[in-house]
């Protein structure tokens, strides 16, 4: 029967007989056959694992053979706020180069930042921020867009007109500007990563709405929709049980690609100062700080840049593979 991860039905309804039409095991097999998609999946899995691990384990010292100092931990992790771990001044050294450099030390594999915080720890914890940013804001856009698109496409007529004109209005504004406006508006002037996530999510609702709507337009003509109407099913339930499950495969692919885009955008926001605030270890925010040290310590920019690059590549390669796997034309 249904494989556990494939439960589409979120509100306590029957879920054990819910499985998407493409068959998850089959799709997974297709993705794994594709070499680039497989590597994408490995990267995604690795990043997900790292961020999940950092949520469970707040003490990274065992990963770095006990080399990471308490201070590095404390400063890297404001969320865990351990003021007692902060060592007295003088014991810390800023701008230590990576371990392979002549001046490097093994206790700081990627060196330290100008404040003397262990860069490796910060990069690792940055995964947590980036991944939750990518997933949560994509989810906001995905869920919101699915609802808007499905309602718009299913009811058609005036509802469709109003919703789609709204969507087009949002489309007409450059996304970054819109995100900044949203973020500033929601936060009321004190920028924070949470607001950035919500702002990005809202901004991408129209994109998802458009994709879902175009699918719904063809799905709503199917006989099983008419059959459902003829047997007295409520419109709301027709949308929930028949329309959305049958239109969401292309959106799923898009969402996977979108995660990468969102991570990049939030990194950009943090770089501009509208996203994560110091001392939260966010890759974009780290880039923001490090660009002032471009000449004295270029590594500060390279590590978070690499992390962003690899993560996004991973999501994109995986998304491309998923798209191929779900496309009936490539199925044999």
């Amino acid at each position: 029967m249904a494989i556990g991860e494939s439960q589409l039905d979120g509100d306590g309804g029957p879920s054990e007989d819910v499985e998407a039409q493409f068959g998850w095991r089959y799709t997974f097999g297709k993705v794994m056959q594709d070499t680039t998609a497989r590597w994408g999946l490995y990267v995604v899995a690795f990043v997900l694992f790292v961020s999940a691990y950092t949520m469970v384990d707040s003490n990274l010292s065992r990963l770095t053979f006990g080399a990471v100092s308490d201070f590095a931990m404390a400063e890297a992790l404001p969320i865990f706020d351990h003021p007692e771990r902060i060592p007295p001044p003088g014991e810390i050294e800023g701008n230590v180069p990576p371990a392979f450099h002549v001046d490097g030390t093994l206790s700081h594999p990627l060196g330290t930042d100008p404040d003397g915080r262990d860069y490796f720890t910060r990069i690792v914890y940055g995964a947590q921020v980036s991944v939750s940013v990518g997933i949560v804001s994509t989810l906001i856009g995905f869920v919101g867009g699915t609802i808007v698109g499905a309602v718009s496409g299913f009811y058609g007529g005036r509802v469709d007109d109003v919703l789609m004109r709204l969507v087009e209005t949002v489309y007409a504004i450059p996304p970054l500007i819109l995100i900044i406006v949203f973020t500033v508006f929601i936060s009321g002037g004190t920028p924070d990563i949470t607001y950035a996530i919500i702002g990005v999510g809202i901004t991408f609702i129209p994109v998802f709405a458009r994709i879902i709507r175009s699918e719904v337009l063809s799905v709503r003509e199917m006989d099983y929709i008419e059959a459902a109407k003829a047997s007295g099913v409520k419109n709301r339930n027709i949308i929930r049980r028949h329309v959305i499950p049958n239109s969401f495969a292309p959106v799923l692919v898009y969402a996977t690609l979108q995660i990468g885009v969102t991570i990049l955008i939030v990194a950009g926001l943090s770089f501009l100062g509208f996203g994560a605030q110091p001392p939260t270890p966010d890759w974009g925010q780290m880039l923001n700080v490090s660009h002032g040290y471009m000449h004295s310590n270029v590594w500060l920019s390279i590590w978070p840049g690499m992390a962003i690059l690899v993560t996004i590549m991973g999501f994109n390669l995986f998304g491309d593979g998923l798209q191929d796997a779900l496309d009936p034309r490539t199925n044999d």
Partner: protein
Amino acid sequence: MAEPLLRVENLKTQFFTDAGTVRAVDGISFEVHEGEIVGLVGESGAGKSVASMSLLRLIESPGEIVGGEITYKGETIFGLEEGPDGDLQRRDDMLSNEEMRTRIRGNEIAVIFQDPMESLNPVFTVGGQLREFIELNRDLAKREAKREAIRMLREVGIPDPEQRYEEYPHQFSGGMRQRVLIAMALACEPSLIIADEPTTALDVTVEGQIIELVDDLQEKYGTSFIWVTHDMGVVAEICDRVNVMYLGEIVEQAPVDDLFHATKHPYTNALLNSMPRPDRTVEELDPIEGVMPEAISPPSGCRFHPRCPDAREVCQRVHPEAKVVDQADGHSHRAACVKHDVFDAGYDESVPLEAEPQVTAGTPGGGEDR
């Protein structure tokens, strides 16, 4: 005769398109009694499907039911009355949309659709869909609904129902899917099932099995059927009474035996002549000339006259309503053709029309908007 289960009077459904008003259903009247299978026969585009969807008030924009009355078990599904300002308005005793949805659709009147390949949601298991349907409409707990679903699957002759319950629609053959749809239609024990060409998409052997199954189930449950089809063979096999539709109108209405053996309308005759029959040997089949005109601009007079072998001059002028032309075991035999004496239109004195070359331009069957 007792009060019929369903009574349709002068039903008119029209589609308002940019090109003009399409009179898809133009004033049809018929009755369905309890435990009866009533056929609705006609070519593609005759308005059969629109008529059957009108019964459930499932006509979507730009279509609209513009006139007539539909009464089901004494309740008004559709009815108009003259309002205070002289305009027609919907009657107060007409069932609300909410009542239609919760009480009539699925529970009282169920539909079996033409294409079993498309009528099941491909994303969910067959059993799950059937169970959910039962759960919603009959207010049963999940476990009971599942037991009931499996019972229904067995009832419609699906072997190994416990196992097939867990399978998806694509794992079923066409005939098996149609059985599932029949199970779904029967699940709430409705009094009336509208079968919209349910065997058209199936091959002949499977069609035979399905018809047999429906016959058995109909006997067992006493459900009435409206059987929409264009296949006279199916009609002969299954129906008690038949309505023949042409271009939105019922041209002949008769018990099935009378329709075949004492045909009163040239169109029905032409239909019967155009198909092979086991009881007659012919050199060549005799198709009906031309195509059905579009319902957007029907011919004047009798709508069938341009294609009718018996057409006379009067047919161009007089538009016949279906009138009783014969009585047979308590059922009247109606036909809409002026050649019968009851019409008194001067058919006998009229000049026969020259067979004109048929104009076959335009899109055939354009009337069947669904």
